[in-house]
C-alpha cells in the first residue's frame, strides 16, 4: 500500500532585509520600488574597488549579551525565525516532529575575519571561545534549532547563492515524506566585508556603479554590469497541511514543488543554454503535477550579471515552453541587492506574498530590456496577477540550481 505524499503549506514568514527589518516593511518596500543599496561609509572602503552594497535597514533587535555570542548571520536567522514563528501562531508541536533547515552561502565570515585579526594582533588567548560556533556554516540553523527546541533534525544546506532555496526544498521533502510536521526554514547571509567584496570584484561579478548606488542593481537591463552585495535573512514556517488545518492555522500558500539540479559545467559561470536550471524548474513542476500554463509569476534569480540573467531567460523558455509568455517575471534583487544564501529565502517570502496579494512588484532600474531576455518582465509599475502558481529560482556558484513552486490552492 502506498500513501500519497503529504501537502505542504506556508503558515509563517520572517524577513530582515535592506528594505526593512521585518516582512511587512520589506514587502512594502518592494511594492514601493525602493532601493536598499547605499554607498558604504567605512574605514576600509578605499581598499576595495566596489564602494556600494545593500546593508540591513534595521539592526537585529537583540540584547547585547545574546548578540555577542552570535555571528551576524545567526542574529538575522534568530530574529527572522522569531518573527516567522510568531506569525505562524507559535505552533504547538512535538519537538521530535519539529525540524530546522536554514542555509547560508558563506557562513560566519565576518566572525572569521575579525577573529583572525584578533589572533594576529593579540594572540590565541584573546580569540573568543565562541569563534567556532559563530563561524560554522551550520551555526544559523543551530541557533534557530536551539531557540525553538527542535529535535527533529537541524539541517544546513550550503550551495552558495542557492542555499536558501535549497534549504526550503529540503524542508519540503521532510514534510512531504512524513519525517517532520513543522519545519522552520530559510537562509541568512552577512558578508559585507573587504575580503568577500574583493573576491567577488576579482570575479568581475559586482556592479562598479559606485557613483549611483540606487541604479546599480539592474537585472535584465541592457546596461547591467554585475550584482550588488546585500545582507539579510528570510524565514518560513512550513507545515504538513493536515497538521496546520487541525490547529486552525492561517495558510498563506502551498509549497507545491521543489527542484534541485546541477550544471556540471563550470564552478562560477552558468551553463549558457540554461539546461541545468531548466531541469530544476521542471522537477519543481513535476512534484505535484503542475503544468507550465499554471505559472502566473516567476521571482527570478536575476542577479544583474550580464551572463546569468540571459541563462535564466533561456532556462525558463526550456522549462515552460510557450507558456513562459503567461508568467509575470520580476527581479526583486533590483531593490534588495543580492543576498547570496539568503536571497532565495527572502524571494520565497516575496513570492508567497505576491500570490497572496495577487500583485507582482516591478523590477527597479529596468530602463531598456536586454534584447536577449525574452521574458515578460514587470517593469515601471506593479502588476496584478490572477490565482495560480509562482516560481522562485536560485542558482549558485558551483553550478547549483534550485526552484520552488508555490500555489494558492
Amino acid at each position, binding site marked *: 500500500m502506498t500513501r500519497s505524499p503529504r501537502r505542504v503549506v506556508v503558515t509563517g514568514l520572517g524577513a530582515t532585509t535592506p528594505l526593512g527589518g521585518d516582512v511587512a516593511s520589506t514587502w512594502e518596500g518592494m511594492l514601493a520600488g525602493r532601493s536598499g543599496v547605499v554607498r558604504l561609509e567605512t574605514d576600509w572602503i578605499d581598499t576595495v574597488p566596489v564602494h556600494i552594497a545593500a546593508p540591513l535597514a534595521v539592526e537585529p533587535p537583540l540584547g547585547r*549579551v545574546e548578540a555577542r*555570542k552570535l555571528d551576524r548571520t545567526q542574529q538575522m536567522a534568530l530574529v527572522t525565525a522569531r518573527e516567522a514563528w510568531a506569525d505562524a501562531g507559535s505552533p504547538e508541536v512535538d519537538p521530535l516532529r519539529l525540524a530546522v533547515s536554514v542555509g547560508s552561502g558563506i557562513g560566519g565570515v565576518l566572525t572569521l575575519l575579525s577573529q583572525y585579526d584578533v589572533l594576529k594582533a593579540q594572540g590565541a*588567548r584573546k580569540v*573568543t*571561545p*565562541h569563534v567556532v*560556533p559563530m563561524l560554522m556554516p551550520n551555526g544559523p540553523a543551530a541557533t534557530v534549532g536551539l531557540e525553538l527546541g527542535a529535535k527533529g533534525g537541524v539541517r544546513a544546506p550550503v550551495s552558495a547563492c542557492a542555499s536558501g532555496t535549497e534549504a526550503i526544498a529540503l524542508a519540503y521533502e521532510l514534510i512531504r515524506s512524513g519525517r517532520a510536521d513543522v519545519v522552520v526554514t530559510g537562509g541568512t547571509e552577512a558578508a559585507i566585508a573587504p575580503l568577500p567584496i574583493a573576491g567577488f570584484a576579482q570575479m568581475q561579478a559586482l556592479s562598479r556603479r559606485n557613483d549611483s548606488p540606487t541604479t546599480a542593481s539592474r537585472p535584465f537591463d541592457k546596461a547591467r554590469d554585475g550584482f550588488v552585495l546585500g545582507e539579510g535573512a528570510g524565514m518560513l514556517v512550513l507545515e504538513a497541511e493536515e497538521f496546520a488545518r487541525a490547529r486552525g492555522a492561517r495558510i498563506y500558500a502551498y509549497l507545491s514543488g521543489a527542484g534541485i539540479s546541477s550544471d556540471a559545467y563550470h564552478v562560477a559561470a552558468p551553463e549558457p543554454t540554461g539546461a541545468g536550471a531548466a531541469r530544476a524548474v521542471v522537477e519543481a513542476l513535476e512534484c505535484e503535477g503542475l503544468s507550465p500554463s499554471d505559472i502566473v509569476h516567476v521571482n527570478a534569480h536575476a542577479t544583474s550579471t550580464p551572463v546569468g540573467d540571459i541563462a535564466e531567460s533561456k532556462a525558463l523558455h526550456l522549462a515552460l515552453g510557450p507558456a513562459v509568455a503567461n508568467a509575470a517575471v520580476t527581479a526583486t534583487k533590483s531593490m534588495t541587492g543580492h543576498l547570496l544564501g539568503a536571497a532565495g529565502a527572502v524571494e520565497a517570502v516575496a513570492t508567497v506574498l505576491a500570490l497572496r496579494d495577487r500583485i507582482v512588484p516591478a523590477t527597479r532600474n529596468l530602463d531598456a530590456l536586454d534584447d536577449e531576455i525574452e521574458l515578460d518582465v514587470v517593469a515601471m509599475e506593479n502588476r496584478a496577477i490572477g490565482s495560480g502558481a509562482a516560481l522562485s529560482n536560485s542558482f549558485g556558484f558551483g553550478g547549483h540550481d534550485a526552484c520552488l513552486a508555490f500555489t494558492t490552492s
Partner: protein
Amino acid sequence: MSQTDVLAGLAEILEEVAGVDPAAVTPEKTFIDDLDVDSLSMVEVVVAAEEKFGVKIPDDDVKTLKTVGDAVSYIQRAGVAA
C-alpha cells in the same frame, strides 16, 4: 587586592560577558548552575579576569573554580604570588 575589590571586579566581568546581575554575584554561587555561565563563557570570564587582575589562570586550574568564592580566593592568591 581585597576580597571585596576582586568580587566587584568579577561581577563587572560576569555582567559584561554573560549578562549576570551584579547583585547575584556572591561567593557561594556556582558559575554553571547558579549563574548560568556555560563552559565557553567561563573561558571568556577567565581571560577577562587575567587581564583585569594581572594574573595567570591556567586552563587546568579553571576546572577547580566552581564557585565565585573559589575564583576570588584563587585570584587573590595568584595576585600575591605575582
